[in-house]
């Protein structure tokens, strides 16, 4: 057992705007069955405005970083949801569990930034899906990244857009799949936030001990990766392309809390391509 005292050196506060280049669909469960209603609603807040949940953003960023840093290799992948049927055949096991990266490497960029679940896990040790227990005792650290819910910037949905949409803030897109032989149609509808909408997002990166800006760099890489991927559902059909704009990075050191000092504006970018570290 190691003990290394953790002290907070400060927080990077990153505010930005997410602009939708294509329609976004972050789904939720509909709680009513209206006749003629939409089958696939998007998530909305208490005021009926769509928003992007912090968990969706964070989960997406994490999974992108896992691929980018080549973390999905044996010995570094765990089952987050244990396979339900405890089959003897490993192939069957691998089918039913949910796998993601989690490791006990002290310098792992992904785990240190996005956090570790300190429960009991089974790590996959080879390509057959054999598992072993994972011990995280020596690498326990608090999670550095906090991702807030991104709220809709109402002014980004113009009057003109609203005239052409089915709801106040969202559009309904009809889609269809055809029987390959008879061409029988099977239509469905999806609600989505229209392209052009903007969301205000905010992130916090805690700086502990001698982190300096290591994790800020990692995080900005993750944002760049997200621009070339998608957010929400149906991404391979064109949904959810986003662009980060007006990025402002501020730093709050411990004097902000102790003596009430103002935080310092560190960097300001119009868009992510300007970021050079």
């Amino acid at each position, binding site marked *: 057992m190691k003990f290394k005292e953790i002290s907070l050196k400060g927080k990077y506060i990153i505010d930005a705007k997410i602009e939708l280049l294509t329609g976004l669909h972050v789904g939720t469960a509909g709680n009513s069955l209206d006749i003629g209603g939409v089958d696939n609603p998007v998530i909305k807040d208490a005021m009926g405005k769509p928003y992007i949940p912090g968990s969706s953003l964070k989960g997406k960023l994490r999974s992108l970083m896992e691929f980018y840093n080549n973390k999905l290799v044996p010995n570094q992948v765990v089952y987050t949801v244990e396979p339900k049927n405890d089959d003897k055949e490993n192939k069957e096991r691998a089918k039913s569990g949910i796998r993601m990266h989690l490791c006990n490497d002290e310098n792992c960029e992904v785990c240190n930034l996005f956090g570790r679940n300190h429960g009991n896990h089974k790590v996959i040790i080879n390509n057959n899906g054999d598992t072993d227990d994972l011990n995280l005792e020596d690498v*326990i650290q608090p999670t550095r990244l906090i991702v807030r*819910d991104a709220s809709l910037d109402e002014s980004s949905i113009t009057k003109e857009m609203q005239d052409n949409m089915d709801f106040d803030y969202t559009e309904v897109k009809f889609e269809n799949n055809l029987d390959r032989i008879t061409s029988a149609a099977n239509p469905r509808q999806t609600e989505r936030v229209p392209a052009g909408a903007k969301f205000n997002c905010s992130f916090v990166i805690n700086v502990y001990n001698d982190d300096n800006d290591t994790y800020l760099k990692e995080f900005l890489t993750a944002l760049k990766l997200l621009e070339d991927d998608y957010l929400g559902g149906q991404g391979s059909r064109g949904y959810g392309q986003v662009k980060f704009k007006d990025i402002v990075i501020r730093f709050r050191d411990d004097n902000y809390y102790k003596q009430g000092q103002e935080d310092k504006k560190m960097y300001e970018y119009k868009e992510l391509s300007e970021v050079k570290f």
Partner: protein
Amino acid sequence: MKRFRIKLKFTSPLHIGYKEGAFNLTETIIHSDTIFSGIINCHSLLYGKDKTDNLINEAINGNFKVSSAFYYINDEYLYPRPVGMNFKKYVDDFKKEKKINYVSEEILFGNTKEAYLKDNMLLKKDMKKNVYNVRERPRSTLDRITNASNIFYTSTCVFNEDCGLWFFMDAKDYIIEEIISSIKLLGDEGIGGDRTYGYGQFEFEPLEHYIEDIKDKNLLLSLCIPNEKDKVEDLIFYNIVERGGYIYSNYSKVKRHSLFRMIQEGSIVKGDFKGCIIDDTPEDFNYHKVYKYGRAFLIPLDWEG
């Protein structure tokens, strides 16, 4: 000793779990042990382990204590309903009367004649909207390779505009600054669960409040574990609640707290009931001490009954 009423204005949803494994349940008030733990953990991030050990000693000596957090609506503050107290003169029906769980300060200590019942709250003013909404929403984890999904549900409590939670804090002058800084950090870190998704964040306002000496009958505003000197006969009316939960530590794997039976907020006690802070460090845990906060926060209550 100074007393502050700390008004929390939540800027994001709040998740306070109370049942193991059930993410889709959330509490809508925060108990004193959670608040204390939040402050202490943030204090240790800001000031380091040694100074935090000092602060805990101050708390054990009674120089720093907190109450649980209850609702407020604008400038109307709610208290837990004193156990056994009768509110029949405000409501017409005894079935409605027994639903009351929270009572406005004006009704409890002032001389308001009229009162309105909203859900389980007895309020001075009639209120149309809800104080809070509990929202359940589906979330999912995706398999990194096959994109298979695992769906689960989480609940959060969202407070309405001008509504939120408040709690009392007593502290000696020389530690107040440190504590306020820690609460400021706690507001940015968040309180409760799912903090890395931005939940539980707040802005706050410390308002100085006068301290009344405790009297014969007192209302308990925090969870409490009696110490050896407290007499059980001093408990006039009380409820008992079980508190389990997990230890939050930056240094250790997930460990459980022991199961405690604690005296609930709203209980009525005679005289100076102190309560205690119990050392609950698990056996194989040697990074730092773990405590369960159970000091009583009392305010006097004039009441014949």
